[in-house]
């Protein structure tokens, strides 16, 4: 179904690539033209993505704005894109953050601006592509395409000391998971062929396939590895602090706000609907890993001396919540997980921007180098406070909605998990507020901090849009939850239906086996 009769998803996906071509043709000395081109491209792309929200039919769970064209016919590969309530908000998150990032690095990136903007725009194409693809081959292509620009962003513009190490680690970790996923995709493809006689990578058709249980477990594990590394779940998270710490500010922002979500999105879109029985079997393992992630991330955050590393570890903790919510497998949990993906994007994205702002002024990120900044930079302090509280999950701000729904969902499915997870909320308050206190309050301990400039208009302009959504989701989440509800409900119904039919089959087989045994015994 495509209610606009217009290839809008293709437009949004490839408009940034078009911008790349323009920028390539420009002289690299003309940095301001390049910056403006990048900004205009991403901003127009954001405007183009708004109709998705307004024309989206919230009552329907089927794929919308669908486009389909045969790509590699012999192998049943098609260019098949479309969105539902699950991907809608994530696409908007990506198009929303792209112009913000271009503006945020206006002063920050002085070197190799042309190449930087090219990477940024290619990254946007990759990210949106991942969220719109409904063909497994297409999805895999975008999934990998996303890697290269991010790798270059970290490796070329990152902090000098360890950027190369971080970039390669990021690349190899992600690649490891995705290559195994590729094998699993192929196995799935051939299983589908042997059952239906049709070669296809069409996700919606593969949903209907019921896969033998033992194979399902293996396939699930391969997909799990790819997505768990990307999320990242404990214990696959070790690339994240390095990548975040070394990446340039906007690299961290996009990494935290959007890239990590491709992992959680992957669970929701691929792993769970394709392999319901295996997903169900792995709920305890994944929930426990998620809880370990929540508590471990929080505890490690507490002892960080580096602001960026602290925010990075807090991501591990927050994404643990998302995973827990998704695997609660009830409407509150999944809805909460989905909205928490957006929330984490907004608040962690904003936190990285804020850390970037003081780093630009002081060229250090060590908590010990700061103190008493609130007196020097009152506007900054206000923004920082709001974002910190949003990250903690203060009622009235966005973080609360997500965490509350997730905990509610988890409570319904397993009380013990919920109790442990809830401690994470407390720890979050501890490490965030303690950090805030050390950086912003108290006496000014260092002379260099006495004359810091408060935020410029540009910097305020970067943060205000994010803050608007932090309040909006906090106060009236229905605008966004309403869009996702039908799709989530549909997802759960399908999941349960498929799970039950598979289980019944299994029981039947058992029953047959048992009766045969009895006959043999007689």
């Amino acid at each position, binding site marked *: 179904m495509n209610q606009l009769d217009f290839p809008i998803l293709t437009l949004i996906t490839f408009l940034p690539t078009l911008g790349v071509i323009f920028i390539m043709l420009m002289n690299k000395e003309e940095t301001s033209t390049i910056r403006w081109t990048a900004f205009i491209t991403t901003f127009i792309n954001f405007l183009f993505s708004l109709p998705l929200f307004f024309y989206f039919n919230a009552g329907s769970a089927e794929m919308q704005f669908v486009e389909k064209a045969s790509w*590699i016919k012999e*192998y049943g590969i098609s260019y098949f894109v479309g969105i539902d309530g699950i991907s809608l908000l994530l696409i908007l998150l990506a198009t929303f953050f792209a112009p913000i990032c271009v503006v945020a690095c206006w002063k920050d990136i002085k070197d190799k601006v042309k*190449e930087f903007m090219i990477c940024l725009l290619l990254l946007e194409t990759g990210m949106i592509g991942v969220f719109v693809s409904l063909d497994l081959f297409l999805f*895999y292509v975008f999934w990998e395409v996303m890697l290269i620009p991010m790798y270059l962003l970290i490796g070329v513009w990152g902090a000098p000391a360890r950027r*190369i190490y971080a970039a390669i680690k990021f690349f190899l970790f992600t*690649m490891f998971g995705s290559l*195994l996923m590729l094998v699993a995709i192929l196995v799935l493809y051939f299983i589908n062929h042997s059952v239906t006689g049709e070669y296809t990578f069409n996700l919606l058709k593969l949903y209907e396939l019921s896969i033998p249980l033992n194979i399902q477990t293996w396939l699930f594990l391969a997909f799990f590895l790819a997505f768990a590394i990307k999320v990242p779940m404990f214990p696959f998270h070790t690339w994240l602090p390095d990548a975040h710490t070394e990446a340039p500010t906007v690299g961290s922002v996009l990494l935290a706000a959007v890239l990590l979500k491709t992992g959680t999105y992957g669970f929701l879109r691929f792993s769970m609907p394709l392999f319901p029985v295996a997903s169900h079997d792995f709920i305890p393992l994944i929930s426990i890993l998620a809880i370990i992630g929540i508590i471990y991330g929080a505890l490690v955050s507490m002892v960080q001396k580096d602001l960026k590393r602290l925010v990075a570890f807090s991501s591990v903790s927050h994404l643990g919540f998302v995973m827990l919510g998704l695997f609660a497998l009830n409407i509150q949990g999944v809805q909460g997980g989905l909205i928490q993906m957006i929330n984490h994007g907004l608040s962690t994205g904003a936190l990285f921007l804020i850390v970037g702002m003081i780093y630009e002024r002081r060229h250090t990120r060590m908590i010990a180098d700061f103190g008493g900044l609130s007196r020097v930079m009152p506007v900054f302090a206000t923004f920082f406070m709001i974002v910190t509280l949003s990250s903690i999950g203060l009622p009235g701000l966005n973080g609360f909605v997500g965490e509350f729904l997730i905990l509610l969902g988890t409570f319904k499915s397993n009380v013990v998990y919920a109790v442990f997870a809830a401690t994470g909320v407390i720890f979050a308050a501890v490490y965030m507020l303690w950090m805030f206190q050390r950086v912003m309050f108290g006496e000014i301990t260092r002379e260099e901090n006495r004359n810091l400039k408060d935020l410029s208009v540009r910097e305020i302009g970067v943060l205000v849009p994010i803050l608007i959504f932090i309040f909006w989701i906090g106060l009236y989440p229905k605008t966004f939850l309403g869009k996702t509800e039908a799709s989530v409900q549909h997802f759960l119904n399908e999941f349960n239906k498929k799970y039950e039919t598979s289980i019944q089959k299994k029981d039947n087989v058992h029953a047959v086996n048992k009766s045969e045994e009895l006959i043999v015994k007689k």
Partner: protein
Amino acid sequence: MDLVIPNIDVASLGPELILSIAAMFVLLVSVFLPKGRKDPAAYLSLLGIFFAFVSSIFLWGNPRYAFNNMILVDNFALFFNSIFLIAAGLSILMSVNYLKEEEMSHGEFYALILFATVGMMFMSAGSNLITIFLGLETMSISIYVLAGFFRRSNKSNESALKYLLLGAFSSAFLLYGIALMYGATGTTDLKGISEYLSNAAYLKDPMLLAGMGLLLVGFGFKIASVPFHMWTPDVYEGAPTSITAFMSVGVKAAAFAAFVRVFLYSLWDLQPDWNYVLWILAVLTMTLGNIVAIAQNNIKRMLAYSSIAHAGYIMVGMVASNELGTSSILFYMLAYAFMNLGAFGVIILYGRKGEENLDINDYSGMGFKYPALALLMSVFMFSLAGIPPTAGFVGKFYIFSAAIKSGYIWLAIIGVMNSLISVYYYLRITVMMYMKEPVKEFVGLKWSPSMAIALIIAVIGTLLIGIFPSPYLDLARQSIQLFM
């Protein structure tokens, strides 16, 4: 005694004849060209390649035996012909300026490339073990000379000598294999062997199995499969870079063409016997090639080990032993031709006389000094690493899907893990180019029109096949009727 005069079907030898005539013409013309200005010889060779390509197109879709069943001109042979012609054409384009720079511009160079290509064509079209052997020798002798073409360079001499000695050794293996095969089956005709083997009673003949083993060794040497790969890094390093490019694509493709034809067609009934061996060799070849490549600091040596690894991936397609696998070998070879030749082209362009810039560290900081060249190199590296949307990715995708289709899931997993290892050393080049500070002065590149054309063809090929693989895939599928 009746003397049967075989039907002489000249038309089916069109490409080979055109190239041979062009080569002889090049030899003749270059005598009259002034010293050091042999460019017309190169352009003449390109013309020959073009016409050979056109005549291959005319032969397409009409398989026929010729010369008393000595050759079989089918789509399989023609598909490989086009790969050889692409390799020869691009290598010649890359050589024009390179030879002038090295003060080694001689017409014989181009003539030898053409003769080698003719040899390759006979290997891919040979439907008799003798034809294949003759093709192999024609190719190899030309390449021995080409590898040592920079006669004042010690490394080039070492390369030629090494290749000659080991090559002669492997030819002997192959020939012995052919002899045993003849002894066991009474024929050297591929179809005859295949028919003979359709009787299951003969399959356990030790002479047959020994013959098969020796053939495997002979081909294994030419495709640089482990454990017959030892010559590769030294020969590749010492040979003139454009010849290294030509060898890594052309020779490998020709050897695979014959290998596939003999094993997947003639010896198909022995498939259960050779499959295990190939499985092991494929795994060893991929793994050793990739792991050792990590440790290389010379970019030509690195690409030499990478070419070993790629031979391993292609062998996975053979192990799969299904239609998909066979067509994916053809497709992969085509993709590999563009990306590998492109990478060597960049290396040639980046070096100069007396300062070859072959150490990987020489690429430090090059990315922002020569953005176009670095971008090209990145595309080729990402393609060799198998990252979409490039030809290398689609190639690997098909190879591994063929393996999975036949149930070799572990082989596919080993394959993708190898590709992960390879990502590390291919990325290293991009790390150097974009993320390291320059360690040396850059004195400018000497772009020449011919090199620019070669690189543009290579990059367009790499991306086009990566983004719209459908037509090429279709051609590859049409080329394997013999094996169905």
